[in-house]
Every structure is written in C-alpha cells, then in structure tokens.
C-alpha cells in the first residue's frame, strides 16, 4: 500500500508542469522566407508590396522610355496613400527604385538627402577646413529628366463574415520639361477574407 494513487500522480504532475512551463517559456519566434506569400490578415502586406514593385519594374524596364539606352535620370516624387489603412508608400517606392537602380538602366537622384548634399558641398567649399584637392565641385548635380509619382487606392467591402479588399496602385513617370506623362502602369490586387464562426 506504500504507493498510493497520489504517489504515482506526483512525478506525473511534475512532468506535466515542467512540460507546460517549457512550452510557455520556449522561444516561439522563427525566421521565415521574406518572399513567401503572407496572408495572415487581409491588410496590406509584404506580398502586396512585392507584387506591386515587381509589376512596376517589369513594365518600366519594357517601356520605350528605358529601352532607348539613355539611362534616364528619375526623381521619386510623392506616392499618395488614399486607402483606409496605414501604408508606407515610400517603402514601395524604395523597392521599385532599388530594383531599377540595380538593373543599371535607370538612374535616380537622391531626393531625400538633397539638402544634406548641399550642406556637405558648402562645408567642403566654404569651411576652409577641407583640402582643396579633395573638394567636390559645385554645380555638377545631375538634373532629373523625370519625376515618378503615383497613388494607391482601395475599395473594402464587408458582408457578414466576408470581406473583399481591392487595391489599385498607379505609378506615373512625368517628363519634367513637357509635363507630360511618359509612362504609366497599374497593379490591381484582390484579397478576400472569411472570419470563422468560432475563433478569430
């Protein structure tokens, strides 16, 4: 009678408690493939960003604007987020810009550090501290021929447990001299979500 039911339960409880504790405390985060399709929620996500950039880059590189081998100089303008959610449109523009730059067929003016470039040029030229032989020349900034601008809009519909989300991304390349739109492309995305009766 020395080993009653509780006696057996003791180690068992310990093991179960330890197991629970381990499950709760162990690292649950893990790295994944950034290019993998992400459909955790219906909201704008990495897959949308990547899909938009891929389509825009493909379309622009196939256009006559870039085909002529002139390596046009482009400046990124505003990409307006007209949807009902937070989207970092600059991140979309950055992806398009980096991919185009890496293709070697389009050049970009660094719009975001224009002021800083001028400040540094002024420091080199005017502070008297910089070796004249290493001073960068003034008046050699390359003027862009085109400005890249665009919009992202959405239509979100909900009926009962179903949601339908439609994104429309428009990108335009405007010639600075004529003011004409020399290239334009769009990317449409549809996503659907259905919330279960139980759970989230």
């Amino acid at each position, binding site marked *: 009678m020395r080993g009653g039911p509780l006696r057996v339960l003791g180690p068992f409880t310990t093991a179960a408690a330890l197991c629970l504790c381990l499950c709760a405390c162990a690292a649950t*985060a893990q790295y994944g493939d950034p290019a993998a399709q992400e459909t955790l929620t219906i909201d704008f996500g990495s897959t949308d960003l990547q899909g938009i950039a891929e389509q825009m880059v493909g379309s622009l590189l196939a256009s006559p604007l870039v085909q002529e081998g002139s390596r046009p100089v482009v400046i990124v303008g505003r990409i307006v987020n007209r949807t009902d959610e937070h989207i970092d449109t600059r991140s979309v523009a950055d992806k398009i810009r980096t991919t185009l730059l890496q293709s070697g067929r389009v050049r970009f*003016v660094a719009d975001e550090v224009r002021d800083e470039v001028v400040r540094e040029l002024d420091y080199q030229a005017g502070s008297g501290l910089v070796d004249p032989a290493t001073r960068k020349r003034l008046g050699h900034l390359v003027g862009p021929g085109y400005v890249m601008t665009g919009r992202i809009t959405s239509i979100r519909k909900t009926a009962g447990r179903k949601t339908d989300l439609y994104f429309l991304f428009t990108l335009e390349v405007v010639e600075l001299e004529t003011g004409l739109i020399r290239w334009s492309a769009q990317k449409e995305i549809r996503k659907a979500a259905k919330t279960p009766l139980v759970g989230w």
Partner: protein
Amino acid sequence: MRAAQPAFALVATAVLLCAAACSTKVEYGDPDAVETLTVDFGSTDLQMIAEKMVRSLVSSPVIQQRTRPVVQVSAVTNKTNEHIDTRSITDKIRTTLIQSGQVRFSAAEVRDEVLRELEYQRGSGYVNPESRKQVGKQVGADYLLTGEITSIAKQRGKVRDVYYKITLNLVNLETGLIDWADEKEIRKGER
C-alpha cells in the same frame, strides 16, 4: 504516517517547480548565435543586414572602380513601429568596411570636436608648433550613406508576422545621383 508520504512528494514537487520557475540564471552566450526570443528586431537581424550590405557594397563597381572612396554616414531613418538604433547598424557596416581596407570614412559626427582640437593646437599657445596639425587638410567625402528601415507588423490572435525591409543608398556628392543601392528583407513569425 502513510498519508504524509504523498503529501511530502507533492510539496517537494511544488518546491522544485518554484525553484525552476523563480530563480533567475544568467549566463554568457555566443553573440553570433541566432536569437529568436521574440519577434522584435534583434541582434541577428542587425548582423544579417550588415553582412548583406557589406558584401553587396564591397562587390559593387562603386568600390571596385574607385580607389578607396571616402564615405560619410548619414541618417538611416527608422520608420518601423518599434525602437531600433539604426546607428548601430551603420556602425557595424562602417567598422567592417574600414577593416576591409577598401573604403574610407570621414567622421562627420565629431566634426565640431576636430575643429575645437585644431583651434586648441593652434591658438592655445600650449602645443609644440612642430606637432601642430595643419588646418585645411580634411578629406572631402565622395559619398553619403543613407537609408531607411520599414516594417509591416501583423497579428491575428496569437500569431504574429513581421516583415522588415532595410534600404541603403550611396549618394554621389558631386552629382547627387544614387550610385549604389541595396535592400535586405527579413521575415519573422511567432505563434
């Protein structure tokens, strides 16, 4: 006496559990080890970003075709929803590139201090004229290193997904053109 034994086992179990759960144990680890304690930005992300950027930059024509260009680190904007010290990312990149010997960096962050020291050497009367540093010998930078880090963080119940994208640009100071750019994407999940 018989009933006391199971009770003793239970108490011992409880004490053991408590000891395992309550005592904090600190130990050193490998700083290069993959850290996935939480989904938030961590050391492994920092290291992966720096490694990719250094590799890309060193193999780029910008570095290959010029003799040891002079770069100045500018701001890398953190546009994520969490605290990230982007300076530590550019510091890691800068240190690795300096150690490679292929890129030189001008220290814009201590410009004022350099100027104060030059003036002290020249104007204080305390410094041996032979050892005074010459004014007007600073090396003008060829490039600015800029960038930004953005993220898309999603959550559904207990499941989290974070997508980071960091972009770095090397801006030619004379032309204002971006001579090199690259990005690093990172995905992390938690459930």
